[in-house]
């Protein structure tokens, strides 16, 4: 793959602009958050061209943005943020992706590393049995076709009704785990058939469950509000999404949007960017179906958290109250949301596409849970399984510059093939074990494809967002046990 030769100019600390005149048809400039070294790596592939392509979307405002974990996706870059006007802009399913509401859920504990470490193998093995994961995995929950509609309508609330969580979990979940615009009638029978048996499964690929230990605390006040009090404290991080249901919703609506592009005469540089006006039948139907998939994902992560709680109780032989496995927060990183933002001095209703990006609202915002009103919304940024993950907070600067968005993870630098070849003959599990990380995976191919070398160092990514002021660091944790689907 050749290096990207387009125009890009440094416009400030960790900020780069792709000028609007780079490509005829761009409606706004591109804005990329990266440091000098990172930009050179980003230029090795075509993701910056994708930033420019997204700028073609009708009704886009501000800039077509890319977070520092940007990498080459299909249509949108991964790490992309695009805001379109609800009144006369479009919604693009490719700006959300196939894994709708792929996201992360963080739980804290009252346990210390020294208590958990001796039992980590037993704990991970128990979690591996108790949380369905891997290729073709089916869930332990049986839902009828009628009940799947309830999951799609209610999201995490459905899981709470079924005893898989509590009101406290909902309070610290983005959207309280339920997007109200969900309408199960807009989700195809195929999507429901695909999704019903997979509810409560981790899946495969980059999805994981990690037992982590707090290594650094940068903001003790904010950390304390999140229940993170000291170094050596054990955390649990869950990363998964809407499984086959979301994939099918995306595919179904890309076909609908393919027709809509012709009907509304929209010119696009890549078919994967297919879109329709937000205020059209196609646009409204997609948002109603996407919300269903998002709700499914929130229910999914809550069910998985429930079984993880069970496993901790079983393996550690303690009561759940003494383990204190309470949810810190749950964020979506593949989603489109209708939000109010200031554009050129006026408050406007926008559709914010976050494709591999996290919402990062500051203190005081109405959508930030009561518990975190004074500090801002927690942002969860997982790294690869051999390094670390970060907890951060949304900022006013993010609200002003990025429509309240920041990065979502490390971002790949190596293709899966290259990662596999790079680790050929190397036992990835043994390498991690040498670092004190016990890993259990369903597929060795998957494990090799997810090796550390395939990713940017998440620390570099988080440093850029911290320096740029679009989120600020609170704490860092490293894994001691990992389940890879």
């Amino acid at each position, binding site marked *: 793959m050749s290096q990207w030769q387009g125009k890009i100019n440094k416009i400030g600390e960790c900020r780069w602009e792709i000028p609007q005149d780079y490509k005829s048809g761009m409606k706004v400039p591109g804005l990329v958050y990266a440091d000098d070294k990172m930009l050179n790596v980003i230029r090795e*592939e075509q993701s910056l061209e994708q930033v420019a392509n997204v700028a073609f979307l009708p009704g886009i405002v501000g800039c077509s943005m890319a977070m520092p974990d940007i*990498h080459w996706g*299909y249509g949108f870059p991964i790490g992309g943020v695009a805001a379109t006007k609800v009144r006369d802009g479009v919604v693009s399913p490719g700006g959300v992706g196939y894994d709708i509401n792929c996201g992360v859920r963080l739980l804290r504990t009252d346990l210390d590393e020294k208590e958990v470490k001796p039992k980590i193998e037993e704990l991970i093995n128990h979690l591996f049995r108790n949380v369905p994961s891997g290729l073709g995995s089916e869930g332990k929950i049986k839902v009828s076709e009628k009940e799947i509609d309830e999951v799609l309508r209610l999201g995490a609330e459905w899981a709470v009704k079924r005893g898989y969580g509590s009101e406290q979990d909902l309070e610290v979940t983005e959207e309280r785990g339920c997007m109200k615009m969900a309408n199960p009638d807009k989700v195809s029978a195929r999507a429901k058939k*695909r999704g019903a048996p997979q509810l409560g499964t981790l899946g495969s690929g980059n999805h994981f469950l990690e037992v982590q230990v707090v290594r650094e605390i940068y903001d003790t006040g904010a950390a304390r509000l999140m229940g993170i009090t000291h170094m050596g404290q054990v955390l649990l991080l869950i990363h998964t999404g809407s499984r086959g249901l979301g994939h099918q919703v995306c*595919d179904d609506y890309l076909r609908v949007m393919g027709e809509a592009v012709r009907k509304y005469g929209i010119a696009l540089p890549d078919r994967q960017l297919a879109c329709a006006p937000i205020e059209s039948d196609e646009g409204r139907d997609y948002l109603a179906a996407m919300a269903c998939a998002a709700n499914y994902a929130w229910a999914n992560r809550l069910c998985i958290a429930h079984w993880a709680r069970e496993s901790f109780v079983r393996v550690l032989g303690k009561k759940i109250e003494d383990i204190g496995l309470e949810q810190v927060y749950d964020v979506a990183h593949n989603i489109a949301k209708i939000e109010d933002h200031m554009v050129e001095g006026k408050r406007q209703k926008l559709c914010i596409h976050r494709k591999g990006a996290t919402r990062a609202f500051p203190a005081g915002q109405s959508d930030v849970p009561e518990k975190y009103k004074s500090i801002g919304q927690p942002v969860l940024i997982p790294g690869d399984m051999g390094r670390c993950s970060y907890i951060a907070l949304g900022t006013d600067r993010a609200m002003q510059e990025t429509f309240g968005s920041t990065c979502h993870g490390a971002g790949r630098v190596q*293709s899966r093939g*290259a990662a596999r070849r790079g680790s050929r003959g190397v036992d990835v599990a043994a390498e991690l074990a040498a670092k004190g990380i016990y890993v259990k995976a369903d597929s060795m191919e998957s494990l090799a494809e997810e090796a550390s070398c395939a990713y940017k160092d998440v620390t570099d990514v988080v440093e850029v967002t911290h320096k740029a002021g679009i989120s600020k660091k609170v704490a860092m944790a490293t894994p001691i046990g990992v389940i890879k689907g």
Partner: protein
Amino acid sequence: MENKFEVIDHTADIGIVAYGGNLNELFANAARGLFSLITDIDKIASKVSKKIELDDRDPESLLVAWLNDLLYTYEVGSTIFGDFDVTVSEDNRLSANCYGEKVDPQRHHLRREIKAATYHNIHIAGASGLYSARVIFDI
């Protein structure tokens, strides 16, 4: 039939380039390429057959619809296919018989999950004699 496809690297995902002397062969080879990403296609026996009929507005859309239909069938029915008789007509209709079997964990090693075939830079090139198509999958 030889494996008339290649697997290509893409940073976040994975792709294939499929070849064929005509659209029928191209579509069959693309399907074989898809299942080669999932498992070892040489180990798929032809025990069951499934008929698939589709239509779409152009050959590229039809190719994506075809691959995603196979992924759907695989996911809901745990059925993998290794052999295909495909007929693609000039008005973008597809009729196919797919031969394969249910996944048997004893014999079939599953490699990875494929979420979907994407439309990203999808392009069918060529004319009489040699067709090729590049498809990127989301994984």
